[in-house]
Structure formats: C-alpha cells, structure tokens
C-alpha cells in the first residue's frame, strides 16, 4: 500500500513540477494504546489544495495538529517550508507557525474579546507593528469576505454556530498565511454559505498562491476545491488522486465516500 501511494506521489511531483511546502515521512502517533496515525507519507506542493477525506475518528485532526506542532510526533520526519520541525528551537518554531494558518474544527474564538478584537489579535502580535489604519481596513475586509461586517462589535457568545465558524476562518486568513490548514470549514453551515466558503478558499488559493490542506466531509466542496484528494482509513492514506480518479476507484470503501 505504501509503495502504491508513493508511486502516485512521484507522478504528482512530475505533473505539478512545483516546490514542496510540506513533506511527511513515516509519521506515527499514538495516545497510550490508541494508535492513531500509523504510517503517513504525504507531500503538499506550493499553491495546491489537498483535501483529506476519512471517517470520523481516523485521525485527520491529529494529523494537521502535528503539522502546526500542537501535538508532538512519536516517529517520522516532518519538513515544512524546507525546515525539519524537530530540529527547530522556540523562536524558529514561532516564525514557522506565523506562516501557517489553522482553522480549528471548533473555531476556537477568544471569548473575552469582541469580534473586532479577535481579528486584531493576530495582527497586533506581529513582530513589526501594523499601523492602526491598516489594521482597521484589514479587519473590515476580512469580515466582508465572510459576510460578518455587521457583527463587528459583538462577542463570540452572541454569534450562531455558523457565524463562529466564519469568524474563525476570517481570523485565520487575516495574516495571509503561506500554508492553510482547514479543519472542516463547512461543517454546520447551510449549502449556500458552504458554497461561499468554498469559493473563498479557492479565491485565497488563486490570489495568494496558498497551499492548503482541507479536511472535510462535504463531498460537493471537495469536488469544487480539490486539486488532489487523500482518503484516510485507520490512520493511513488508503488512496490518493484527483476527484475523478477516486470516484471511479476499484476499492469499494474509497468509492463509498463519493456516493
């Protein structure tokens, strides 16, 4: 199986002929006796949208949390933007993290801050101070992108679930990261807003040439945005390819995701 996926990987390398931004080799992670990630091999190219599909509890969220270093790896190699994560010190790690955007499955908004402050927070934490006018215009723009311009002075607790999700997305995108990790960006949203979020993700890819991993259960969304899809089963990559490839896969389990 591993040999199979890696051969596909090499093909893709040739096809895209792009630089690699994230590279994982033989990634393993267990929580006690719960072996979550078995042997993950994966690359992401510059400007690519990679969609990860998989059943609930297979370790998709754990995988992307490993990429940002929220969860430590047990084994394996992880290279991000040419730097091996396990060899970095605090400062370098923080610098790398500033280039990665992470949308939490639960949105993870700062409860004690208003919507505006939530968006300002990542901007104010930058090394070079951003002038106030720039902050204001960036915040306005980010809120308009996700259709929340009217909610600017509300507290997160006053927002609906979908609004929280969109605010989380706005907060992540405001720094224009080089790598975006979306954990279920459209879950819990109505079909119309889902489409809007999908086109936002595509927009981000087009304008900023961002490389993204998108975890989703929303197959319509996957069809729209994916350059490449990986199906995860039991902590392994079970299949990899374009939407059309996997839709017609000989593996019934893989095919069942697309029905």
């Amino acid at each position, binding site marked *: 199986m591993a040999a199979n996926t890696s051969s596909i990987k090499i093909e893709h390398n040739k096809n895209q002929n792009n630089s690699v931004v994230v590279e994982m080799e033989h990634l393993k992670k267990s929580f006690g006796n719960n072996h979550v990630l078995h042997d993950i091999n994966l690359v992401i190219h510059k400007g690519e949208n990679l969609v990860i599909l998989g059943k609930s509890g297979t370790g998709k969220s754990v995988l992307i949390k490993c990429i940002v270093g*929220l969860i430590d790896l047990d084994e394996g190699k992880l290279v991000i933007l040419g730097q091996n994560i396990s060899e970095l010190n605090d400062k370098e790690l923080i610098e790398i993290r500033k280039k990665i955007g992470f949308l939490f499955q*639960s949105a993870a*908004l700062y*409860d004690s801050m208003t919507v505006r402050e939530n968006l300002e927070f990542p901007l104010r*934490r930058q090394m070079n101070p951003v002038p106030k006018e720039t902050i204001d215009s960036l915040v306005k723009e980010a809120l308009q992108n996700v259709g929340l311009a009217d909610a600017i002075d509300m507290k997160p607790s006053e927002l609906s679930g979908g609004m929280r999700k969109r605010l989380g997305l706005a907060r992540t995108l405001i720094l224009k990261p080089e790598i975006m990790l979306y954990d279920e960006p459209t879950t819990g949203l109505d079909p119309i807003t889902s489409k809007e979020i999908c086109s936002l993700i595509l927009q981000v890819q087009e304008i900023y040439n961002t490389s993204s991993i998108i975890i989703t259960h929303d197959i319509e969304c996957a069809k729209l945005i994916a350059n490449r899809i990986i199906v995860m089963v039991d902590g392994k990559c079970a299949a990899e390819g374009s939407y059309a490839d996997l839709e017609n896969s000989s593996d019934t389990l893989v095919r069942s995701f697309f029905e």
Partner: protein
Amino acid sequence: MDKMISRSNQREVRGIENNTKQFSETIPDSVFKKFFLEVYSLTIFTLRFFKEVIKPPYEFNEVIKQSFIIGYKSLSLVGITGFIIGLVLTIQSRPTLVKFGAVSLLPAMVAVSIIREIGPAITALIFAGKVGSGIGAELASMNVTEQIDAMSVSGTNPFKYLVVTRVFSATLMLPLLVVFADTIGLLGSFVGINLKDKVSAYLFFSQVFQSLGFNDLFPAFIKTFFFGFAIGLIGSYKGYNSNKGTEGVGKAANSAVVFGSLMVFIIDMIAVQITSLFQS
C-alpha cells in the same frame, strides 16, 4: 529532561503530560504516585515561569490589564472583610483585657494581630477564593475550547501571554490589597473601640504606631508577595493543565482554591519560623 524544559510552547506541556503518563504507567496506582506526579509537573511549571518571566518580549499591556482585573476589582471585597475583621476582633478581645485591667492596650494588641497575621492571612484566603479560582476557571475554559492552542498557532506564546502576566500581577497586587485591608481593619478597630470607650483618633493611631516595629511590618509585608505568587501560580497551573472537557473547568477552579489556600498556610508557617529565627 533538559530539552523538555527549554522548549517553550504548548507542545512542551503536552510533552510533559506524555512523559508523566509514561512515567505513571510504570509505578502502581497510589496516592503517593499522584502526589509526586503533581509536585513534579508543578515544579516544571514553576521553572518555566521563571525562565519566561525574564525573557523578552514583555507583555506590559497585558500585565496592566490583569493587575486592574485582579487588584482593583477585589478592592471592595477585601475592604469590607478588613473592616469587619478589625471591628469583631476589637469587640471580642475587649472582655479579656478588661479582666486583666489592660483595656488601654487594646489598640496595640489589635494592631499587632491585624498587621502581623490576620490581615495578610484573611486577605490571601479571600484572594485565593476570588482571584485563584477566577484564573483557574478562565484558563481551563480557554484550554477546553482550544483558545490556548489557537494562540500558540498564531505565533503567540500562550504561557507568556496568559500565565506569566497573571502570576506576575497576582504577586504584585496581593501585597497592595493587604496594605489596604490592614488600613481598613485598623479603622474598623477604631470604630469597635469607640462603641464602648471614648478614644480619639489621634490617641488610637499614635498607640497603634508606637506598638508596631520594623519586625512587625517588614516580614508581614514580604510574605504577602509569596502568598500572591503561590495563588497566581497554582490557579494558572490548574487551569493551564486542566482536562479537556467542561468538567475540567470546575475541577480546575475548585482545586485552585483548595491548593492555593493550603499553600497560603504552609508559606505562613515557614515565614513565622524564619522571622522567629531573627527575633530571638
């Protein structure tokens, strides 16, 4: 181990958790094991605090904001209790002193008890209940809702931004609150004396200040810094390392108060030993 302490991100704490988990699987279950694990990770947490508090950049704005929340918002509670304690202590001590014909010593006696022990201890306990539990619950709920993770992902060191600022503010604010409580407590005592006797404010306070020496004021003031530090640190530790789950929030708040108060008494006991060394 060395490397573990030197890492300063969220993953470090995760690392400690994993380590402690592995460590704990090798020893049989017992109260002792739990106790040592707790002491071990609290020690690492404390070391990390000292490492990060000296390392720039400093979060001045956040320290000021936290000091306001921690200090200013506790003023009324601390003031009211201080007043009542001063009043009650005076009224209750009076009959005993009357028996020995020493009522004139009442201001001096009450002043020494308030300044040396009752002011610092009561204020610290109230502080543990209000501020310690507040920090514990706040950080625990931020932990549960992944806000702490979100912070470290956005390139902010959450330990520095959340923990260091709170512990630092608590350490600075408690001594000020104690001074405030002592002052109000003496006012309460003045009112208490005047319920039965007629003593002018001038006479009362000149007696108070005559009775208080450096040996009363200085150690009592110094120990309050340690009280504040312990309460802030334990609240942060319990919150920052809480279980993921809403249940963890309640537990964190609860044990922040319990262990914070216990630490106040332990530090108090140590402090009295040290000061008596210098006085005998």
